[in-house]
């Protein structure tokens, strides 16, 4: 990136990509003392050209790079692409497969939010404890993933027309047990972190994003819901079994970093409710239809929108009757939220110490922004 002009009397700090809290991106900060005047995000360090890669792959093998757009939130990434292919090709999914997908998606969402939650603790300097606790608790979900899908992170589990494997024996009991355990653990998180007076000091009133600004700047996911706007693709455009289970959209009105953290916290609670309902009343039946791995999709286009852990993920799929997609446009949530992050220094008074807190409150996953 060519660096934009710098004003006199400010110092420009290059924050990342080698920085403890930057992730795979670079942020330029124009600072005057502790005060940050301008944030410039420099993305593209992990640009792999997934949109181009998908054009050269069959629909089945395209699922794999899509899986790797956000490793921590694999299921929610691939469900978007798989849903788009199913819509375009008109493939029916068996009922049980839909419920299993919803289960895996919610587990993936908990995994993603737990990671974000731990990083939020880490970014306020709450150095060791909560991040490692979330790591331990994610282990339980990863074990469930391993048992169900065979892989812990980038399980390539969904395909157009169902899921690869049925639930193993005793899996439902394990899910219920994990739900019970995680519910117990969240009391500790709430007391040790969210209600910690110093954590409140660091997060309350920081980086306020008014609802009208959130809409104008195109925020999505927990950032949008933390500003009090209840837009959630799982309810607005129900896919899979989200229409059949009971849950609610979480919003917070405080519009600040703490509101986003709380949204994530309560969304984990809702996801646990969904997991419990699915484990209790999942219907019987087949989990996959007969689908050719080298299928051709008739010419047309369709848009699928799903709610990933970081916000709305959209796939705009253009097909031309061959075995490969003609073009896939991925509307990634992190790219949208990064723009919000760039503008936050103009809307608020932001200090250097707030930067890691704000970054992690929007929970970026740069591989998903760069694609």
């Amino acid at each position, binding site marked *: 990136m060519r660096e934009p002009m710098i004003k006199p009397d400010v110092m420009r700090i290059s924050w990342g990509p080698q920085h403890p809290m930057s992730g795979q991106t670079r942020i330029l900060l124009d600072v005057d003392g502790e005060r940050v005047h301008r944030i410039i995000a420099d993305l593209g360090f992990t640009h792999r050209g997934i949109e181009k890669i998908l054009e050269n792959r069959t629909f089945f*093998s395209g699922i794999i790079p899509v899986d790797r757009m956000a490793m921590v939130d694999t299921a929610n990434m691939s469900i978007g692409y798989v849903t788009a292919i199913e819509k375009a090709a008109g493939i029916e999914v068996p009922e049980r497969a839909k419920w299993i997908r919803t289960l895996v998606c919610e587990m993936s969402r908990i995994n993603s939010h737990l990671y974000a939650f731990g990083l939020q603790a880490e970014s306020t300097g709450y150095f060791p404890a909560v991040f490692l606790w979330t790591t331990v608790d994610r282990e339980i979900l990863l074990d469930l993933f391993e048992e169900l899908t065979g892989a812990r992170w980038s399980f390539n589990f969904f395909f157009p027309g169902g899921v690869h494997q049925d639930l193993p024996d005793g899996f439902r009991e394990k899910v219920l047990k994990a739900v019970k355990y995680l519910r117990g653990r969240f009391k500790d998180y709430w007391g040790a972190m969210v*209600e910690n007076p110093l954590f409140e000091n660091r997060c309350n009133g920081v980086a306020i994003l008014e609802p009208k600004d959130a809409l104008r700047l195109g925020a999505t996911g927990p950032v949008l819901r933390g500003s009090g706007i209840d837009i959630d693709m799982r309810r607005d455009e129900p896919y899979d079994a989200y229409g059949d289970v009971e849950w609610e959209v979480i919003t917070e009105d405080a519009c600040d970093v703490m509101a986003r953290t709380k949204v994530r916290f309560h969304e984990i609670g809702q996801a646990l409710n969904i997991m419990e309902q699915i484990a209790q009343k999942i219907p019987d039946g087949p989990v996959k239809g007969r689908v050719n791995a080298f299928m051709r999709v008739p010419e047309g286009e369709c848009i699928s929108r799903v709610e990933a852990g970081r916000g709305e993920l959209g796939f705009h799929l253009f097909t031309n009757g061959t075995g490969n997609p003609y073009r896939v446009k991925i509307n990634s949530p992190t790219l949208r939220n990064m723009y919000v992050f760039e503008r936050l220094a103009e809307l608020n008074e932001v200090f250097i110490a707030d930067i890691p807190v704000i970054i992690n409150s929007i929970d970026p996953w740069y591989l998903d922004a760069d694609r």
Partner: protein
Amino acid sequence: MNWLRKMLKPLMIVAPYVLRNSQTVAYPTERLMFFDRFRGRHVFHLDRCISCGICARVCPDASIELVEIEGKDKKYPQIDYNTCCFCGYCVEHCPKQALEFTDIVEFATADRSELVYSPERLMEVPDIKEILPMMKRRTEAYLTDKEMKYRKVKDV
């Protein structure tokens, strides 16, 4: 006083953790049991293979190539683990279950060319004790209401 209680509450929550069990596995001496579906290195059954080539066609990373082996007139899959992403398509689409997954994940090498596994090498599954000579036992995780615990399954 309310303020003081609020300050002390996180301390009261964190302090008991010091007495808890650690939730880690001492990896080279203990190794977790992996689940049945775990996708580790492949094992190849030569007698079942019909050389249909579906695995090579379905492989998203073009890691599988059909090669000739000595003494056979047909071609058999060779897997390049430099690029394999363990997606599982080859195992799932194999009509005769000639390719299967094992739970071996320790096959790092110093030389990239050693990661290309010929059909003969794919047929052998080394004993875990050969790969990890320091390994003493295999453990398994289980969940109680309060914490995750590990118990010994067997000595190696």
